[in-house]
Every structure is written in C-alpha cells, then in structure tokens.
C-alpha cells in the first residue's frame, strides 16, 4: 500500500528516494499538512509547556494561603487574583494542570489499551466473545462509588507504603479510573471488529494463511483507529472530570492538592461573585480536550491510506 501512495510520474532517482521513505514518514508528511492537527498540536504543547515550566517562572506556592490578600483581583503578584482563602488562582491552575494532564492522559491510555484489547479479542475470537462481553456487562453494572470505597480501603495503605503518598495515590486514581472506564471502548471496538473480520480483505488475508496475530495488527487495528481516536478524546475529558469527583469524595488526592476538575467544582459556588475562578480551569480542560481531538483527527486522516495524498 505504501507503493500505491507514491506520486505517479516521479523520476527514477525519486524511486530510490521514495523507497527509503517509511510508512511513518508518509504519515508525518500527511499529518504536517493537516491544519487542524497542527493547531491542536500547538495548543496542546503550549499547555504542556505552560504547566511544566510555568511554576518555575510564577513561583508562588499554590497551596500557600495569603489570607490577608484573599478575594483580590488581577495584580502583578497574583496575575489571576486569589480565591476566598487567599490562594493564588494562576499558580493553582498551573499546578492543577500538571496533575490533571498526567491523570487524564495516563488513565485514558490505560482505559484505551484495556478496552481495545478486550474489544479486539472479543470481536475476533468467537470463543472469547461470551466471557469477555459478560465481564464487560459486569463492569458496566458495578456501582462505581462503593467499588471505589472498597478499592481505596484495600489498596490505599499498601500503595502509600510502596510508592509514597503522592505516587501511590496517583497510581490508585489512574488505576481506578482506567479500570472503570474501558467498557465503552471495548464494546465499540468489538462491534467494529465483528463487521471487519467478515470483510473481503480479512478473508483474503486469512485464505493465504496469515496468522491471527498478523491479521489483527495489520488489518484490523488500522481500520478501527477512528473510534479509538474518538474514545481517546472523550476519555481524557472523562478522566479529568472523574478525578475531581473521586478526590472530592476524599478518595483521591489530599484536599489541598489542586487539580482542574477540583478547581471547577470547588469554585462553582462563586459563579455569581468571581466566575473566572471556575471558568479558567473549565476552559483549560476544554482546550486540552479540543486540541487532543484535533490531533486525533489529523492522525486518523494521516493513517488512512485511501485519503493520503489528497
């Protein structure tokens, strides 16, 4: 298929050059030409850059309560003002971004990997379909909150002891979110795989004796990329919001640990008084999700050989 994408009528020397081009090189060229994806990349990396290096420039401690300066507006020391306990909003948003991005991306990846594996296996191997889908039903049916309480009770102290308080809780939260949000991806992937594996090119591959592993990686996976990309985008948003709910209930990060979701929910009461306290982190979440969505779009287009080169 790589050959098929070669522009016709290139000089002979070009063929030598083209042969050295890899699939991923093509994808990159295509991706670079995708306007939305480039804007998405730019925003995403800007956000990552800001939350990584921002706290080094804006060195105010996000948990420090400057009580005398509470509820203050925009100023040089506090660029976005302070909240009702005198914490610096800008520093909180930056610090919160680190946690939210880390949790969002890791949990999304975990859910995506589990969901895709379960979905592909259930759709592809008939004997696995029953058990795996019943497992999915079980996870869909389990009430999340009591499950969280149980998980926290069983594993919090163990993880704290093994990895220290912060990493331990991070692993716990990412694990919990990942483990409880893969089901939709699994069901969607399975539905697509069920249809795909009856398609002609899969039958053709099978008839020439291609092993199942090859069929899955070469033919099935590239074709289910679109729903996976959508799941990824929705998954990040979901993970960021779930984290705030989990932490709010006292099952996640300690109460003085800012995250975007938490800033939105903590400051929602102030919507009539200081709406920016909640709107800024909400916009940050939206921007992240939006940029990931555009990157996903670009990747999908770039990986689709049928539209490559258009």
């Amino acid at each position, binding site marked *: 298929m790589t050959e098929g994408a070669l522009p016709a009528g290139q000089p002979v020397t070009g063929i030598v050059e083209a042969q050295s081009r890899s699939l991923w090189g093509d994808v990159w060229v295509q991706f670079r030409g995708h*306007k*939305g994806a480039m804007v998405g990349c730019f925003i995403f990396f800007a956000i990552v850059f800001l939350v990584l290096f921002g706290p080094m420039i804006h060195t105010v401690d996000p948990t420090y309560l400057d009580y005398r300066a509470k509820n203050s507006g925009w100023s040089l020391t506090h660029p976005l003002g302070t909240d009702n306990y005198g914490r610096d909003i800008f520093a909180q948003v930056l610090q919160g971004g680190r946690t939210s991005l880390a949790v969002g991306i890791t949990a999304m990846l975990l859910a995506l990997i589990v969901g895709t594996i379960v979905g592909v296996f259930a759709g592809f191997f*008939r004997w696995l379909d*029953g058990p795996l*889908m*019943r497992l*999915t*039903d*079980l996870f*869909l*049916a*389990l*009430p999340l*909150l*009591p*499950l969280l*309480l*149980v998980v926290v*009770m*069983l594993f919090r102290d163990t993880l704290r002891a093994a990895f220290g308080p912060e990493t331990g809780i991070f692993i716990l939260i990412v694990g919990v979110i990942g483990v409880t949000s893969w*089901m*939709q991806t699994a*069901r*969607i992937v399975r*539905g*697509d795989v*069920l*249809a795909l594996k*009856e*398609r002609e090119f899969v039958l053709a591959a099978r008839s020439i004796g291609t092993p199942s592993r090859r069929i899955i990686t070469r033919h099935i996976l590239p*074709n289910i990329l*679109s*729903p996976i*990309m*959508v799941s990824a*985008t*929705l998954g990040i*948003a979901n993970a*960021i*919001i779930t984290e*705030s709910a989990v932490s709010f209930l006292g099952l996640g990060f300690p109460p003085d640990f800012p995250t975007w*979701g938490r800033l*939105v*929910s903590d400051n*929602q009461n102030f*919507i*009539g008084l200081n709406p920016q306290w*909640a709107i800024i982190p*909400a916009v940050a*979440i*939206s921007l*992240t*999700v*939006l940029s990931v*969505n*555009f990157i996903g779009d670009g990747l*999908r287009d770039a990986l*689709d050989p*049928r*539209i490559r080169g258009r």
Partner: protein
Amino acid sequence: MLNYTIRRLLFAIPTLLAISFIIFIVLDLSPGDPTGNLPLTIPPEVREQIRLSLGLGEPFPIRYLKWCQQFFINEPLNMIEQWTGWTIGSGERLRVLSWSTRSPVVDLVVERMPQTLWVVGMSQIVAVIIAVPIGVISAYKQYSIFDQIGTFISMIGFSVPTFFTGLILIVIFSVQLGWLPSVYDTTHRVTDWNSFWVQVRQMAMPTMVLALATTAQISRFMRASMLDNLNQDYVRTARAKGLRERSVVMIHVLRNSMIPVVTVIALGIPGVFGGAIITEQIFKVNGLGQLLILGIQGADIPLVQTLTFIFAVLIVMFNLIADVLYGILDPRIRYD
C-alpha cells in the same frame, strides 16, 4: 439469529446471578454504614441496636440469600397479586425494604420512574435527533465551517462537567432572566395544555444539559464512522452505478456507519434508567439517579443492590439488542 438470541437469553440468567452476587460482595465490603449519617447525639449502643434490627448481625451468605428470596420470589408474587387480585399463599411476604425509608424498594423505583423517564429519556431522544444529522453532515463536509463549529460545540459539551453547565444555565435562566424554574416539581401533574407547558419549562434545562453531553458523544462517533465509510470502494461503486448522492450517503454509508453509534446508544439507554446523578441533583429532579446516590451515601444495601441489579438486567438486555442490531445492519456478521 433466533437461535443465538435464545442461547444468549438463557446464558443471561447465570450471568445475572453472578453479577448480583459480585455486586453484593462489593457493597458488603464497602466501608459505609447505615447509621453513618445520623446525628452524633445518638449513642453507639443505640446504633448497634439499629444495625441489628436491619439484619446486619446475620452472616453474609444468609443476607444474600434473603435478598434473593425477597427479590426473585416475593416481589414477583406480590406483583402478580396486585395485577390479578389473587391471594397466593398467606400473602404475608417480606418485600425488599430500603433501610433508610423502611419502605419497599420496588415502590420507590416505580415512584421515581416518571421524572427520570421524562427528563433523562427525553434528553436521549433529543440527543439522538440532533447528533445523527450533525455527525453525518460534519463527515460529509469534513473541515467545513459547519464541521468546525460542530466539533467545537460538542467538545465543549463533553469536556465541561454537567454540574458546571447546569449551574451556568440556572444562573442565566433562573436567576438573571427568571424564565425557567430551578427546582423541578415532582408533584406536578400534566392535565391540560397549560400544565403541559409548565412541565416543558421545568424539563427544559435538565434535558438540555444532559442532551448536550450525549449529543457530543454520539455525533463524534457518528462523524468518525461516516468518514471511514465515505472512502470505501462500495461507495465509489454506488456512485459509479449512477445512484443519487442522497441515497448513497443516507442509505449505504449511513447504514454501514451505524455500528458504533448503535453501541453508544445501547449503552446509553440503561443509563436512562440509572438516572443522571449529577444533573438530577442540580435541578432537584429526584429521580432514580438521586435515589441511587442517596442509597450509596447512606449505605442502604437493599436499595443499592436492587437498583444496580435492575440496571444490570437492562445492560445485559440492551447489549443483546445491540448485538442483534449489528446482524441486521451488516448481514455479514454472524454469531452461529
């Protein structure tokens, strides 16, 4: 297909029993306590007495079997009695009683059905009606202005938590403009046009908040799936055959793109009965979602167990329906 459906239905029974048992284990392990929300002025000995009166003194397997008996035998018998007016046996059967309200859980569920169906059900319908055309047009005119705006709105709809969108709507429409009520009145009865209009007004905000989030999700999957199909060979063939563009898109592509969307909708419908916990809280709809969350917070095991089990039944059912629909949408999918 019929064979497959019957086999799946039979297989569903042990599956559901296993699920109910696992749910019971989770609820039992979970550290909440039914006396946890009582004022601290109630001394520990009295709390212990309350726990014993709830049957918490009995060992775990007995409590599970009791629940099974109450739910699988007593409740159906009771329902039959109510429908037919017969008396079966002595008529003295213990129903599944909630710990916090001391009333039959099934009655509570029935009481809360109307508002949940009105609000959450309507939001699903609205979402599907809006999302499918948006997804189709966005894919057909990829990267057009319509697509970009649609993408933007649906991403905001999905990434801003519902508690926040709900709050903003309340501040705008109830506080500032005073157009819509912020509190849903569950005692309201629709009897004429006037009261119907009141119902529409009180439903408007919660329905829109929920529909926004669901629309975002469905339209994204619809768009992605349409994009995959628009470049397939069969589309080119159909066009080459001289079919009208409209029927190419609306019949061939749409039908083949429905599989992920059917999955999402099939997962969403049991969710309707599960209620919408956060949105119901914000607008005080007090439907099934609020019932469930109160049950969980109050460690009301019989209530949570029954609700989640009903929920599990719906999930298994609708996943089966989705599987059957796959076969109809794409006849190549065979399960036998």
